[in-house]
């Protein structure tokens, strides 16, 4: 099995404060990976480092390429659409994506829009938090890439929307692509995860297959994750 991502000795500081230190991580293709950790642990920063949105030290290789500009052609990241004014309609955002991303699949986007029940004629400013998150998911998954980075896709949204988003992830993730989902609510996404990566103490503290966690510790993913913070489980 080939690797989609290899991170070696990656570090990141902001205003002289260390956020991530000496991070090593390798992800194989075709997996759904839960990137877990407390608020402020560095999950989003790690994702931003992968796309070049944040600048750190160390080596990041995506699909065998170490150049950030090339990384971005292999990675689809849930960005919060801040480059658009509130007056922009969802269909205009989709048109933007269609123009600038050669890998954007318009037909797939339409399927996602139907599945997630998105009204594309709405303006961004008129979208509820849950609806905006669905739009972001639809745009992110409509690209045909090797690595999908979903940064807290369920934060602040209702359980029905969460279920629909989880269903869309299962339905539209290409078999040969890897998907990294960051979250601090573990229970809802635990059943779909192949692997978990826990960011703790400024580094990757745990990287394990979900099945290995269940076998080794006799715990579910959510319980195991919580036990890390209670100090009852050993670090990897």
């Amino acid at each position, binding site marked *: 099995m080939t690797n989609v991502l290899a991170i070696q000795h990656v570090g990141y500081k902001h205003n002289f404060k260390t956020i991530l230190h000496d991070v090593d991580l390798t992800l194989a293709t075709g997996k759904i990976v839960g990137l877990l950790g407390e608020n402020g642990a560095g999950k989003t920063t790690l994702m931003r480092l992968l796309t070049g949105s*944040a600048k750190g030290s160390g080596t990041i290789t995506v699909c065998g390429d170490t150049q950030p500009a090339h990384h971005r*052609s292999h990675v689809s990241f849930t960005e919060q659409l801040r480059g658009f004014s509130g007056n922009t309609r969802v269909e205009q955002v989709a048109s933007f994506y269609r123009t600038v991303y050669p890998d954007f699949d318009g037909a797939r986007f339409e399927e996602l829009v139907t599945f997630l029940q998105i009204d594309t004629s709405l303006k961004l400013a008129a979208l509820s938090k849950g609806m905006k998150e669905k739009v972001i998911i639809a745009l992110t998954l409509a690209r045909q890439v090797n690595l999908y980075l979903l*940064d807290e896709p369920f934060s602040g949204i209702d359980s029905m929307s969460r279920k629909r988003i989880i269903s869309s992830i299962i339905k539209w993730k290409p078999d040969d692509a890897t998907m990294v989902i960051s979250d601090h609510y573990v229970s809802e996404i635990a059943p779909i995860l192949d692997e978990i990566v826990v960011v703790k103490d400024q580094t990757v503290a745990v990287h394990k297959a979900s099945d290995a966690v269940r076998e080794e510790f006799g715990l579910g993913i959510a319980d195991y994750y919580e036990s890390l913070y209670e100090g009852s489980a050993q670090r990897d």
Partner: protein
Amino acid sequence: MTSFGAIFKVLGRSRFRLMNWLILAELAVMAATLLWRFATAGVQGGETFWSVLSWSVLGFIVAFVLLSIQTERVYTRDTYRLLPLGETKLYLTDLLTSLVMFVYFGVIQVVFYAVAEVFDNRYLTAWLKAASGPTYSSEQSLKALVGIAAVGLALAILGWTTVSFIHLVVSVTNNFLPVTSRRLINIILYLVMIVLVVWIAGYLVDAANHVGDLLTGGTGFLVNIVAFLVVAAIEAGLNIVFLKKWVETVPN
């Protein structure tokens, strides 16, 4: 990878719309000014020309500022920085898009001047004659107008590269330095900005008083244009290095 045409298209679309809104607003205030003048003072010579010229100067300043905001937004928004293309291509296309839209705005202004000249033809001619002295001819006045446009564009490019330079330095220092050092850097940058604005304003006043240079074959204008573009190229190079190495986007 994203092509030049694709990025130019998406960046240009919103800026083109913005320039059109500005042109509509400009037309509205020009019309309102003329109506008010005609209603209060009756029809006298020169209203159309001076109204168009005055609002046009303000229009150029507003266009420059609006395009600056659009240009700078690209550097710190994930919407643009996540596109699969290198920072050099992104920076240069962004700058070029603003320049093209500024030229578009300028061409519309020339149309306005031409219309105003139909109504008040002696005012533009009188101004050119005053600037050129007894040697005035149509050929020389055209040369002067092209020269003014060239200086304007060179200044706009220098203005945008300078604004970006300051913006990106602030962005870099905000990421790396502790609060106290950031404040010191910001104060220094504000001072630099003030000095630059005063210097450019002084230059513009001086340039307006020496339009005759162009008509009499003086090389002062040309030297200034080259100097502006050299400084702009150096700043652009530094801005690209900042983008590649240190400038981050605003986090989600």
